[in-house]
């Protein structure tokens, strides 16, 4: 089934895009991440221009996170207070990201920067997750419960001035910490077309020290609004949001997300995390490999 994408200016196999959305949807339902980290590189691989891929993947993440937020807010697992602070940072971040995007594009290094960011982020986070889930798996096999990790925020967070109480997260920290985190994730969302869930969740746990029960709900809440801001920012600046591409991706990913959520109930969480870690590391290795080998195209064209 051939579908012409009016913004990307090329025709693609519609079924393939829906399946791609479905695959990332399953992942997002299972692991609570947006799945943008897979969609964007795969779309670029398929021949969609990188900017269009990043801009349209952002709206896919919006769709995938809506149902997640609804479910989590029903079970009161969202800390709206810290979420709003992070959203404010996130919107600031998308603005900064848009500026950075334009600068890097003019310099001609946007694709390389995006690729290097992917390798570093995915490699780092994947490695951390793999180690953690392996430790958890080993200890559950030996029968001993793992020593409970002391929930503490990072010393740098404690040194920030002006503290607020965040009751639902059980925190008394400076709002500057979640604000800065929001800004970082906003920049990454704009550049990489990802929701940033796979960065946010560990950062909220290990840097802010939030209680685990509200982490996933709150990160989805923040991702929802930041991807909305990103889609709007792309629509206004790069004009690269392809609504037909987004529709196809959404069709697959919203159904995939539901399927993934059902699957997640049946599997052991540590095993799930290990599988996600392996996928993330595989993507990172593939991209690192891509940086080093001679690319299929030495030349590329920018319209002036």
């Amino acid at each position, binding site marked *: 089934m051939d579908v012409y994408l*009016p913004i990307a200016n090329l025709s693609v196999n519609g079924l393939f895009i829906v399946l791609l959305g479905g695959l990332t949807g399953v992942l997002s339902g299972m692991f609570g991440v947006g799945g943008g980290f897979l969609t964007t590189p795969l779309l670029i691989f398929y021949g969609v221009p990188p900017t269009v891929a990043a801009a349209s993947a952002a709206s896919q993440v919006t769709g995938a996170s809506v149902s997640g937020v609804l479910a989590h807010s029903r079970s009161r697992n969202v800390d709206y207070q810290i979420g709003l602070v992070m959203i404010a940072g996130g919107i600031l971040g998308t603005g900064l990201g848009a500026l950075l995007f334009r600068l890097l594009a003019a310099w001609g290094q946007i694709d390389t920067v995006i690729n290097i960011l992917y390798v570093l982020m995915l490699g780092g986070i994947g490695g951390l997750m793999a180690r953690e889930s392996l430790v958890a798996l080993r200890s559950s096999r030996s029968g001993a419960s793992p020593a409970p990790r002391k929930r503490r925020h990072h010393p740098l967070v404690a040194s920030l001035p002006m503290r607020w109480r965040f009751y639902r997260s059980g925190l008394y920290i400076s709002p500057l910490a979640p604000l800065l985190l929001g800004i970082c994730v906003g920049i990454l969302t704009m550049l990489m077309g990802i929701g940033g869930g796979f960065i946010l969740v560990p950062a909220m746990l290990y840097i802010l020290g939030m209680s685990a029960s509200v982490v996933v709900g709150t990160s989805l809440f923040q991702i929802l609004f930041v991807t909305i801001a990103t889609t*709007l920012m792309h629509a206004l600046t790069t004009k690269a949001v392809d609504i037909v591409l987004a529709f196809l991706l959404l069709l697959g990913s*919203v159904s995939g997300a539901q399927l993934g959520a059902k699957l997640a109930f049946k599997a052991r969480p540590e095993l799930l995390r290990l599988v996600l870690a392996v996928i993330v590391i595989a993507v990172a290795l593939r991209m690192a490999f891509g940086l080093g080998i001679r690319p299929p195209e030495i030349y590329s*064209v920018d*319209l002036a």
Partner: protein
Amino acid sequence: MRPLLALIALLLLAGARDPILVPEVSQHEIQVSQGFTGTELLLFGAILDPSGTRAGRDYDIVVILKGPTQAITLREKEKIGGIWLNAHSTAFRSAPSYYAVASSRPIKDIVDERTAAIYELGLNRLQLSPVGEIDPDEQARFSAGLVDLRARQGLYQQNDRGVRVSEQVLYQARISLPSNVQTGVYTAETLAITKGRVIASATAKVEVRKFGFGRLVATFAENWSLTYGLLAVGLSIAMGWMAGRLFVLI
């Protein structure tokens, strides 16, 4: 009917000995709509003696289809510190977004280098107008890079046997346009060449434009960006919400 009328008009006007070229294009408008996967244009026509009889001599025909020109920056990757980076770049003021040339024999057998350069016959003779001063070797390398890139995207084509001339009168050439063509006005130029000299030429215009839903989306995204963005956001929220609802019921 139209080619015939043009032919008669030309016959009345032409007193010279140069032959008359009557070109036609199968489509003057190409609509890029939903499901567009590219198309094929048929460029055809006739060459006649001024007296209206068969030309009676061998002619070579070259047809060129050229898309709107673009100002572009071409970047070249190089391996630096183990990573492939965009290391060099050059700007061209007028790179055609599409260029296809078809001829009845290889161009180098039809005309000399000078004539080929004047009429821009062949992928290696495109006039790209580089911006600023640039070393000729480097310019040649960049031009070759652009041609190679776009040839593999199907946007630049050269077919040395793409024109068929039958009975020294009729000629026809098929030229394919891929789905990733730029919209705009294309010019189809036909040259009749004999003994290395261009003796007749004619141009026709072909307009490629987006049509229907695709055109609506493209103009909407360009002119009403905020509304378009809000629409995209609304679509994703609605679809996410609906999926959540539907799957609860199942």
